[in-house]
């Protein structure tokens, strides 16, 4: 049998250590750029224009055309390999300005294909940001209520709900932190898809926790005399096969998406991959041990509980 709830201090420590770099990245970005990670035009408003060329074009060459036409803040990056497709980010363009720019681009580079063009007004961006924040809060509350109802027959149903949410916040923080680091390193941008990924991570994290909690719920009346630590560790041992198996299948599907799924959804899948991994981890190493910590009023697991367990085991 595993001794996870018993040795919880180490797992809590590990989680803290893992969260800190991302947290630092988020705080740094918040101070330096005003947001915990790079926000895409879905949130900020602006234009994103992907162009295809018949030859290799350097980002600087393309940028020069935008600057000449009065868009000095334009950012240009290469999309994919080959350097034939580039992406420009600038403030929101009107149709007339876009047409003017297209004429200028065709004059400079010859045949230019419009791969995609997105323009988001600043009002829309603000609305999406607000709705996103609301969605995350609403999802957390709804899940809390659902958990309390689902576990109403277990003792301290409220604790099941709260600890599941804490584990979920852990996954959220870790995922956001890693995204923030990738945002600093590779320029990843948060868009509507990113938000989808985050909300899915929330769902996945709780789903995983529920499976572990379900076993604890089932074992509590069965092993009435045992301390909670033991019941929890027993339940974790019993469900670990399932946790690993389900995590593996999720990994297979997402790796396939990551490798074959195309450029547009790569950051999306990467966020999911991180989220699902930490979701599985936190159900076992955070959520369930937290339940014990609450019961024993000791986050780190005191010596008394340890001796108690040993006496029981003996």
């Amino acid at each position, binding site marked *: 049998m595993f001794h996870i709830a018993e040795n919880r201090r180490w797992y809590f420590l590990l989680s803290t250590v893992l969260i800190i770099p991302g947290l630092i990245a988020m705080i740094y970005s918040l101070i330096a750029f005003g947001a915990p990670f790079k926000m895409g035009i*879905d949130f900020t408003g602006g234009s994103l224009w*992907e162009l*295809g060329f018949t030859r290799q074009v350097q980002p600087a060459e393309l940028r020069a055309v935008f600057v000449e036409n009065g868009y000095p803040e334009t950012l240009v990056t290469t999309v994919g390999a080959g350097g034939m497709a580039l992406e420009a980010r600038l403030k929101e363009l*009107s*149709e007339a300005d876009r047409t003017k720019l297209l004429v200028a681009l065709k004059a400079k580079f010859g045949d230019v294909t*419009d*791969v*995609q*063009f*997105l*323009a*988001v*007004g600043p*009002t*829309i*961006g603000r609305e*999406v940001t607000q*709705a*996103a924040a609301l*969605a995350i809060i*609403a*999802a957390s509350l*709804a*899940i809390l209520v*659902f958990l309390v109802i*689902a576990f109403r027959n277990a003792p301290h149903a409220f604790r099941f709900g709260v600890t599941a949410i804490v584990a979920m916040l852990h996954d959220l923080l870790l995922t956001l932190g890693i995204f923030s680091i990738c945002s600093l390193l590779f320029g990843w941008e948060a868009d*509507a*898809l990113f*938000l*989808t990924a985050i*909300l*899915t991570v929330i*769902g*996945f994290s*709780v*789903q*995983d926790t*529920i*499976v572990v909690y*379900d076993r604890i719920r*089932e074992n509590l009346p069965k092993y009435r005399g045992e301390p909670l630590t033991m019941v929890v560790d027993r339940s974790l041992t*019993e469900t670990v*096969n*399932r946790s690993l*198996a*389900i995590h593996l*299948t999720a990994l*297979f*599907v*997402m790796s*396939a*998406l990551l490798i*074959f*799924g*195309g450029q*547009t*959804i790569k950051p*999306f*899948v990467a966020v*999911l991959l991180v989220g699902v991994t930490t979701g599985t981890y936190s159900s076992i190493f955070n959520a369930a041990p937290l339940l014990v910590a609450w019961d024993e009023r000791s986050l780190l697991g005191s010596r008394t509980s340890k001796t108690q367990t040993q006496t029981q085991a003996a």
Partner: protein
Amino acid sequence: MRTSDKVLLVFIILLTLFAIWVVLPIGHPDWVKQALVWQQPPEYRDLKIREGLDLQGGTQILLQAQPVGDQKITPTDMNTAKAIVERRVNGLGVTEPLVQLQGANRIIVELPGIDNGDQAVQTLKSTGQLEFVEIGSSTNSAFPNIQDGVYVRTSNTDRVPDPATLGKIANPYPDQVFKTIMTGRDLQTAATQLDQYGAPYISFELTDAGAKIFGAYTAQHVGDTLAIVLDNVVLSAPNIRSAIPDGKGIIEGKFTREEADSLSIQMRYGALPVPLEVVNRRSIGATLGADSVHKSITAGIIGLFTVLVFMIAMYRVPGVFAAVALILYALYNMMIYKLVPVTLTLPGIAGFLLSIGMAVDANILIFERMKEELRWGRSVQLAFNAGFHRAWPSIRDSNLSTIITCLILVMFGRNFGAQAVMGFALTLALGVLISMFTAVVVTRTFMRFLFLRQGANEEREKQWLLQN
């Protein structure tokens, strides 16, 4: 083997046959399409997989009403604006366009296949200017090609759009700027009437100011052609028969009742009641879309195949059942996508693939539970039943939590710009619901035939379930 299992088995087989028939890309008889009564409008009643703009390429535009001064926007204004935009969209000749009101002051327009939406945007935004335009003498006309639907330039509007995308009839006189006599501002009302033979015509009435200009002009130009022009497209080009001093006139032509109605509506509602501004726009090239379709299909097949192999390798005999259930799961999903229909987008496909993970989760929970029960010394029959019975609460609760998240995603996805989210949540929720049927009911029914049959070898079955 209980009777209820046999009934279930027959049901599953029938459902599967039906699903295969729906999913196969063959011609389906009309009665199936007609049975899809919930699909509106009727011309959408078919069994195609609908692709979102991100997959087939196209332009999505969000128009927002920009009130002038302290103008109040009423729902009537927005409905009128929508009708006008709809008419203009139809003029663009796009297949299956979508025009929808959103919220109190927005209109969503989706134009599949138009990947450079500049011209479309220009057309939709234009205010809808109605003009009375001088063409010249009809008996000795220098412009015989002025007819309904022709694009012309007028002195009042200096726009020079690409005629090919507009009225579909090219401007016969690209260099000629026709003189505008009067604009729609001077029009009081217009209505369809029927003459004594039942032929429709349009009567219109001008404001007092309009009547003065019109009276003076018609008195001098009896016999000449006067074109009624909406957004630079000729609606009708009648001859002036006599002076019209009272500001009341009629337009006769060879039109049907419907055409006359639409004409009078265009005259009445010609100008947008409120200017529209483009606040959001997405244009996706067809190549990018096709590439996305190709890649997600590859990813989907590989992902599904890997999971099938994994389940069989991990659980052997029960794993085969789970694999069959998973194939049925994919099949049923496809069927629902075609019947509802669900518009597939890139995130939607991702949602479906993720739900594969959740679909096998139920099977894993059940199989692991069976193993445990066997290790605790239960008989195969008891372990088999307990596996399904005991695993159910956690399958139910965990799937419910996913569905709750999906519901919130759908609510959030109603907001424009986050519609990608909606497609994802929809396919994920649908997948979770279908998976509860395939992973639990279908797997159980199939497995009962093998494990609960008469004269089964208990030891061999135990080995099948334990696999180690």
